[in-house]
């Protein structure tokens, strides 16, 4: 009787090569970066010291001013997101392969990809010489920077619509406008709205740092306070950033849940962005 042997395991080349590439990249980075690792030993103590300096004696008198600055950050994020949506909606219909031809869709998608790659802060740097150190710079940087992401999310929604309502509209002899109003819009509105809110949440974080380079909002106050070692103000500012962000996240998140509840919409996957 011949001995049975287990079949050989198949070699997963994709997996092996990716793993190897990652290992090589990590080793290359470890060797290449001249990091003074010994500084890490002092880090906890340093962080604790700064923490006590910042949060040790918070002064409530700083609150109104900084809360106002946070409101400016939130405003920048909201207006910026709306501007982005204003441009992304028409563009995304041109990027949906089921509505327009492939060549047009491809061109618009590349525009989205390019816009997506550039961080808002870089855009803000470019806009400061034009608009000065004003909140409007932050608004436009966020507005331009979010078109790509929103557009991508939008056209994916548009491409996933069901044909049936469109056929029904055609069957009763609807014209183009009616067809769009009753066949397309109801299918895409909930998800699009919730994506706009999601992007608003992301943009709160972006607008909070706009100030670090002078483009309005609370980042400005925090950066200045840290630079001039005005620890209490920096601590209060940081606290307000954290609380404000979590608060807006909670409200907007609840609204998003309410919007997509009851439809067959899939929950928003951050990883798809």
């Amino acid at each position: 009787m011949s001995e049975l042997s287990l079949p050989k395991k198949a070699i997963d080349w994709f997996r092996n090569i990716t793993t190897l590439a990652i290992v090589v990249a990590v080793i290359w980075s470890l060797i290449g970066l001249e990091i003074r690792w010994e500084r890490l030993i002092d880090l906890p103590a340093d962080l604790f010291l700064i923490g006590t300096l910042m949060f040790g004696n918070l002064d409530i008198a700083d609150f109104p001013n900084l809360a106002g600055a946070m409101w400016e950050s939130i405003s920048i994020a909201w207006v910026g997101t709306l501007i982005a949506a204003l441009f992304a909606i028409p563009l995304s219909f041109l990027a949906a392969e089921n509505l327009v031809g492939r060549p047009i869709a491809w061109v618009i998608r590349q525009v989205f990809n390019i816009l997506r790659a550039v961080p808002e802060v870089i855009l803000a740097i470019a806009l400061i010489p034009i608009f000065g150190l004003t909140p409007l710079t932050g608004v436009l940087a966020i507005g331009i920077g979010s078109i790509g992401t929103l557009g991508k999310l939008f056209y994916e929604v548009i491409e996933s619509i069901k044909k049936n309502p469109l056929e029904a509209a055609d069957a009763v002899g609807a014209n183009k406008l009616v067809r769009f109003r009753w066949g397309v819009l109801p299918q895409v509105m909930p998800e699009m709205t919730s994506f706009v809110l999601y992007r608003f949440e992301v943009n709160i974080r972006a607008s909070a740092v706009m100030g670090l380079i002078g483009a309005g909002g609370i980042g400005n106050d925090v950066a200045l306070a840290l630079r001039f070692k005005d620890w209490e103000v920096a601590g209060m500012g940081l606290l307000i950033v954290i609380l404000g962000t979590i608060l807006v996240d909670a409200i907007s998140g609840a609204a998003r849940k309410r919007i997509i509840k009851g439809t067959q919409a899939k929950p928003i996957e951050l990883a798809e962005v």
Partner: protein
Amino acid sequence: MTASKVELPKKPGIPGAIIFSLVFAFVLTVVTMITVEFSLTEILTNFGRRNLVADGLFNPDFGQILSERSLSAFIETLQLAVLGTVLGGGMSMFMAYWATEFGNPIRWLRAIVRTFNNVVRSIPDLLWALLFVTAVGIGILPGLLALFFFSMAVVTKLTSDTLDGIDMGPIEAAKASGSGLISMLRTAVIPQILPSYTSFVLYGFELNLRASAVLGLVGAGGIGSRIEFFRSRGDWSEVWGLVLMFFLVVFLVERFSVTIRRRLV
């Protein structure tokens, strides 16, 4: 016998919730526009004016990235992103595990871990960088720490959401057959989350790569310091040359990463 008149059902009106949300959104928009002093005419006149930034954009100096200092800063940026993501992604595995019910049965401890994650996630990357620059001084280390915390927070959030939704059956089976913690994780948990986890880490890498370009603006190393240098001198051709070249690379890396992510999920 006369047929009773059939009445059409009443047309449903617009729900109050929608009216409320629309009014709320409208008021919010008006108030925020006033706060940021939004003005369309200002935007149009400013964009219409000839300016140095736009001149630089149309005449970028692509050669700048090959100069010795810019190239080494550029490589530093890539290395920072790789290392920050690997460390942050690795740590997030533990953080995500501790944020779940089966990984951390003690309720208040779990609440602490989750709150910590939320707080870390609410601080933007550049603010992390500024905080660490304040703590450990200008250099690469604050940049690495910023990317570490930032990607850890994002990946933790996504992974713990996935962990919450996994099938508990294999875990019970592993426990029933008497496996210890390590072998339970190895056979019942990791196989369930590995594809999505890997894709989250790659997503974190994409975020870190983009973030690493701006770290230098606050003195945390990488290509951003070169961008800031040329910006402060007003050499917009050099700025745009660096930015465009960097984002060409980001774009290529992202395509690659998206391809891998598609295969994984």
